[in-house]
């Protein structure tokens, strides 16, 4: 933290120094740079409500914008959400124009026609993971599915079992559900992860106790994109007769998943990560051997009594169509994403002092997380206002808190602060990736020129050897 404070202060100083000297080569048009409200910006940084400079005005000298092009940023945050596929919307529109029946109304044709569509969607969703349609319960999203599984199963078995296991890098909704159970008197083990972001299977096996009820490990990590060894975890869980829940919001349809081969008992799925509508998800719950749980939402007994409430047929049908397209387009999408991800990775890792976070082999290609040393992620994101990126999960991007996932990997604060996540998807184009590589190269260089730490590093000073003075 101390290091960061020093960095920020010095940065501000050198910012002013840089802007006042117009002979620097990267300030292409000194006259134009003089016209920028530099002084205003410098003054406003000391006040409480800092308004981010629109269009990163101060950075204009480094890279003039081409006004013959549009202004909307390139979308590279596919882990946060994906654009809804037009083919999905086409399916959904039927339900907003004609098919408005309640799928649970069993006495008339309006109910029957929507029910038929809902069941079709259920089959498509199940097909992706080799499940039976009856094992799919529709929810409002993966957060609800995670809550349902993590709270529901231990609560049902609470008279005999009191322990659950999860990992430190899980999504916030899994961790918070687990915390909630701790308040109810359950024991929770949070497994640490290695530097590559993967859990240690031996540690998992050791952590399992006689009263362990549930193991919850995610498929693909939302921040660093590593794939956990689900098959091995499933095998360990089956051997020890423990239920295995996996949060596959980021993995569903993007990596091959088969619930029977992987011995998965419960799987959380999200619709809006697979080009479907927002506000819909599903939980796969194994029927043989049966997984029993206390429902969170009770009422009319819809969805096998596990999730009462009328389904939203437009969302469910859109979700189903998105799942159908996932199977249909699997190879086409996979090859495209792999090609773009490799291009992006080689392009960005060619910048010196950059690190790819997470395992290099066990990863989903569509999520590339890179740390740029000697730069603050937030300032890079500000400079990259023409690319929609995130420094981690959307849940924590509002605060300046460094990513807990990168922390769990053993990255220090500075490196965790300088990480950026690139999400590539079905609709990303090669042109966009080329633009991003070029823009990042330019702006990383520019920001590093401002950084006193970078200057020191260039002079050959080992930053770890410096004793920073306190205030």
């Amino acid at each position: 933290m101390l290091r960061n404070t020093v960095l920020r202060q010095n940065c501000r100083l050198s910012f002013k120094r840089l802007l006042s000297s117009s002979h620097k080569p990267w300030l292409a048009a000194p006259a134009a740079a003089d016209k920028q409200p530099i002084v205003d910006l410098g003054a406003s940084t000391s006040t409480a409500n800092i308004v981010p400079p629109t269009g990163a005005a101060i950075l204009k000298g480094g890279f003039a914008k081409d006004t013959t092009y549009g202004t909307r940023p390139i979308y590279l945050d596919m882990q946060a959400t994906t654009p809804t596929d037009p083919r999905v919307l086409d399916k959904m529109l039927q339900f907003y124009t004609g098919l408005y029946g309640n799928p649970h109304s069993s006495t008339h044709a309006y109910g029957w026609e929507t029910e038929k569509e809902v069941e079709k969607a259920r089959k498509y969703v199940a097909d992706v993971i080799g499940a039976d349609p009856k094992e799919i319960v529709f929810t409002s999203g993966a957060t609800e599915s995670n809550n349902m599984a993590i709270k529901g199963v231990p609560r049902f078995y609470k008279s005999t079992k009191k322990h659950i296991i999860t990992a430190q890098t899980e999504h916030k909704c899994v961790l918070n559900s687990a915390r909630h159970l701790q308040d109810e008197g359950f024991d929770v083990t949070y497994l640490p992860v290695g530097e590559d972001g993967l859990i240690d299977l031996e540690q998992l096996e050791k952590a399992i106790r006689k009263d362990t009820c549930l193991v919850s490990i995610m498929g693909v990590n939302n921040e660093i994109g590593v794939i956990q060894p689900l098959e091995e975890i499933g095998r360990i869980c089956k051997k020890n007769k423990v239920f295995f829940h996996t949060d596959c919001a980021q993995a569903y349809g993007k990596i091959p998943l088969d619930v029977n081969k992987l011995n998965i008992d419960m799987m959380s799925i999200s619709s809006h990560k697979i080009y479907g509508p927002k506000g819909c998800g599903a939980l796969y719950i194994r029927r043989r051997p049966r997984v029993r749980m206390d429902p969170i939402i009770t009422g009319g007994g819809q969805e096998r009594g596990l999730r009462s409430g009328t389904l939203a047929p437009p969302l469910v049908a859109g979700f189903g169509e998105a799942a159908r397209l996932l199977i249909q387009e699997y190879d086409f999408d996979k090859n495209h994403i792999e090609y773009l991800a490799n291009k992006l990775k080689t392009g960005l890792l060619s910048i010196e002092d950059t690190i790819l976070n997470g395992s290099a082999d066990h990863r989903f290609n569509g999520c590339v997380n890179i740390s740029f040393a000697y730069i603050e992620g937030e300032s890079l994101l500000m400079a990259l206002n023409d690319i929609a990126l995130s420094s981690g999960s959307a849940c924590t991007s509002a605060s300046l808190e460094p990513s807990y996932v990168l922390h769990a990997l053993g990255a220090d604060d500075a490196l965790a602060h300088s990480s950026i996540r690139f999400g590539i998807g079905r609709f990303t184009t090669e042109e966009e990736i080329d633009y991003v590589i070029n823009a990042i190269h330019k702006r990383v260089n520019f920001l590093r020129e401002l950084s006193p730490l970078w200057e020191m590093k260039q002079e050959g000073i080992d930053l770890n050897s410096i004793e920073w003075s306190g205030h």
Partner: protein
Amino acid sequence: MSSLSKSVSTLPSRTKVLGLYHNMLRSSLKFDNYNFREYFLRKTRYEFRKNMELTEEDKIIAAYNDAVKQFTVLKRQATISEMYHFDKTVVEPQGKVSGAEKN
């Protein structure tokens, strides 16, 4: 145009297949959204090129009918896309359709 949006039960002629191909490309080009436009252009080209290698009659008919179904969706969605305008992205030249240059 209308005959192109109907499914067939006999082997479609070369002109018919090419007509469908061009219509699908034209519909893809109509998308206002850059990413959707580029995706459907890429996808349509890929599918038709891949299906050029089909030799069995029933497979060709099935592929053609499938494309007809996709074409109707594409046509509708392209029209909807034209109704809602958003700013162009930073890789798109203003007032020009970038995909058109490639044709």
